[in-house]
């Protein structure tokens, strides 16, 4: 990010916060026992496909919004109001309820350092935490686990069958998705572990998979015992993640099933995280945000799924919600103007959501550049005012207690220009 893109207010804010945050952090780190930090939880939700920030948190109070958006503009009376400028999409009911109680905030002009508008490049940069494409081969959440390893053992988990780049690296993180469960009486798992003993890839991955499956059974049993949160057994087919309930032949029933599956997924993940020795750090992906055409209906469905995941997570974490921060980000936003087909094309800045019981109440995170033509990035997209690595660094330092020096050298190398966002927790 160039200095030009940061306006006066953000520079002043950074200047003011630098001195204060260092001493504040120091004392906090000193005061916090490892026991406290070991309870802190972080969930990163990756919204794939380029989520349209102007739909997530429509700036209905921005005088240029309605004109740019044309047929896909949301009406002020339909959005869930946040402040004089912003509302939330009508499907984000959970997020709005949390925001009302100071437990959710938006970063309305956040972006990765990548500007290529390619999904695949931009997702790489988001997940590796590098300053450019191909800058790193491991994910920044995995490097976080690595940085924490000398201090305490922290578990990482991704939801979904395939391991996302953000959690790939030297530390074998767990992955889990709903399935049949392991037959405890069969000899096969043990025999296979023998067979994989000298296999550097299959050995650790399989061992980790078995551990996680055992934990899943425990989490599910614990939740089934709680009447208020009767999460069905993992064998329910509708527990497939919402990512796979694609729009094919979508109908009312499928839509309800999708929301229900998303909610269960969230609550199961929450159930995992409150287990003794459960993961403190988790990643979950939601896809289907690439809304080039007919955007209104598509994004409503996707956002309702996201809201259901967050609702489930909130419920599943129970009392541990107070120790949790959730960040939802996307690889890039979309064009400020509606395109020729009732959708939007690849853009730059989007909205990030920051939620959790550990969050301090406050207004928007980062600055709002506005949608005046002169303010648009390349006369096209919402201009970025906040490098998402700054948000990540701030949360990792202040919430999870990752060492500052390790953050700058290991987790987010070459990110000096992206100052950590402080004061969030």
């Amino acid at each position, binding site marked *: 990010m160039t200095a030009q893109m940061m306006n006066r207010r953000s520079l002043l804010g950074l200047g003011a916060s630098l001195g204060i945050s260092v001493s504040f952090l120091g004392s906090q780190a000193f005061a916090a026992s490892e026991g406290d930090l070991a309870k802190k939880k972080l969930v990163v939700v990756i919204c794939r496909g380029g989520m349209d920030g102007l739909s997530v948190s429509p700036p209905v109070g921005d005088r240029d919004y309605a004109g740019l958006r044309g047929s896909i503009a949301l009406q002020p009376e339909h959005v869930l109001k946040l402040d004089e400028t912003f509302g939330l999409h009508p499907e984000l009911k959970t997020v709005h309820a949390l925001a009302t109680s100071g437990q959710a905030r938006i970063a309305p002009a956040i972006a990765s350092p990548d500007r290529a508008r390619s999904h695949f490049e931009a997702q790489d940069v988001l997940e590796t935490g590098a300053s450019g494409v191909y800058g790193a081969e491991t994910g920044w959440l995995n490097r976080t686990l690595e940085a924490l390893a000398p201090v305490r053992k922290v578990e990482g988990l991704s939801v979904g069958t395939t391991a996302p780049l953000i959690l790939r690296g030297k530390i074998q993180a767990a992955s889990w998705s709903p399935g049949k469960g392991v037959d405890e009486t069969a000899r096969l798992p043990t025999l296979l572990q023998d*067979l994989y003993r000298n296999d550097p890839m299959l050995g650790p991955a399989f061992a980790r998979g078995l551990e996680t499956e055992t934990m899943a059974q425990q989490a599910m049993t614990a939740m089934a015992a709680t009447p208020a949160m009767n999460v069905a057994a993992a064998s329910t087919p509708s527990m497939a993640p919402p990512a796979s309930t694609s729009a094919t032949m979508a109908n009312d029933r499928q839509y309800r099933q999708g929301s229900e599956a998303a909610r269960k997924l969230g609550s199961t993940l929450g159930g995992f995280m409150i287990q003794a020795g459960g993961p403190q750090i988790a990643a979950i992906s939601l896809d289907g945000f690439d809304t080039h055409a007919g955007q209104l209906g598509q994004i409503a469905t996707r956002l309702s799924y996201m809201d259901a995941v967050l609702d489930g997570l909130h419920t599943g974490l129970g009392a541990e919600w107070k120790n949790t921060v959730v960040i939802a980000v996307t690889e890039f936003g979309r064009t400020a103007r509606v*395109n020729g*087909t009732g959708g939007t094309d690849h853009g730059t800045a989007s909205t990030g959501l920051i939620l959790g019981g550990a969050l301090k109440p406050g207004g928007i995170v980062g600055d709002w550049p506005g949608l005046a033509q002169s303010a648009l990035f390349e006369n096209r997209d919402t201009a970025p005012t906040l490098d998402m690595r700054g948000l990540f660094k701030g949360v990792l330092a202040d919430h999870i207690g990752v060492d500052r020096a390790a953050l700058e050298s290991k987790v987010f190398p070459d990110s000096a220009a992206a100052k950590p966002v402080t004061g969030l927790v």
Partner: protein
Amino acid sequence: MGNVATSRKGERRLSLPSKDMMAAIAVTRFGLGARPGEIETAKADPQGFLTAQIRREGADLPQDDGETSADRFQQMREYQEQKKVERQRKDGQPPVAAAATPAAKEARRDLRDKVNDDFLARARLGANTPADFRERWALFWANHFTVSSTKQITSVLIGPFEREAIRPYVFGGFENLLVASSTHPAMLTYLDQAQSIGPNSRAVGRRGGKGLNENLAREILELHTVGVDAGYRQADVTEFARALTGFSVGRDTEDRVGQFVFRENAHEPGARTILGRHYGQGDIKQGLAVLKDLAADPHTARHVCGKIARHFVSDAPPKSLTERLERRWMDSGGDLAAVAKALVESPEAWDPTPAKFKTPYEYTLSTWRLIGAEPSAYERLAPILTGLGQKPFSAPSPKGWAEDAQTWASPDGLVKRMQWAQGFAAAVADRTDPNALALSALGPRLTPPVAKAVSRAETRREAFALLVMSPEFQRR
């Protein structure tokens, strides 16, 4: 993981393994896994076994219902029309709450069944074919030009797309394949090209609020041809999108319903500049000229040959291999039969250490091939593929399915493969001789620890599950 491949120096003179080992590699690495006796068949001339599968007329066609995309397009339109009428009848109710009538429900079920049948027919071809290198080559291109079930209209066209736009062209010139894909209704609807209209075209006046959509233009550049690091900019994407305006699909009211049409009146007038090349004012010829240049661009050769090497040989293929493929591509003007032949003739592709981890589709098909059978129903196949993260016809993005071990050898993926292997073994293993199967599946690739584990198993089922879960069977 590319352990061997990356440690090797490109200049080193490579020697080929024994004929027996090459036969096992031919069938497992280049093909879809050994059917009973297949490795034996390949022994006489393993490379010839593969090159004999390359043929000008393209890949085999799955035995499906044979409906064209035009047929399917019309059926989908009829169904949508039916739904619309019902919706109007239930005036006042939000569309999502208006439950479909029996007729519409049945129509929807029919269409869904057709999509499932398309997929099953393709899987059966993969499970049965003796020319499994040819099938793999076709699958590679279907994934390169991914079309995914994100829209109803697209989902019913995926089967026809592979049949009409991919399979006939996979051993011809790359340009023809590119044009076939870029003008097929499945691609045009999947990447929103069908609705894209030049902002200064005549069609704009009639259809207010309509205009450009750059989705297909961007993905052709980034994914199908030159690749993201070829140095193009946003302006190139937009210019290309303008050149492609008019590429569309015939509507119900037109002659060519459900087929490719060029809409003159939607085409953006004027000359275009794309990647520094100038294209004069023109109709359909303008877009086709851009496609021709993109197909011939050396960046395309590099981008696509790298993908071929990563698909067949290693997640980190030796440079000497990708360069060899690239050279053959450029020398032959993008002749895909020549490139396929170059792949088979490359010594780097015959390293005895298997560097690739099978994708869920490759993996499950290879278990059916192992016992000389085919999936009997869509329901036998779809749940495991969905569970393993590869839901039928539902690649997560236009980039297609990932093909690297990091993606598929995940903790959860391995546990799910094991659960499935247990179920599959319970259904089929009692009729098999696991020791013989191990040999017929892997030939000389069968290692002593696996042979021992299989022979020491307590039951046939356990032995079978151990075999298909062995590192050797899951890798190729």
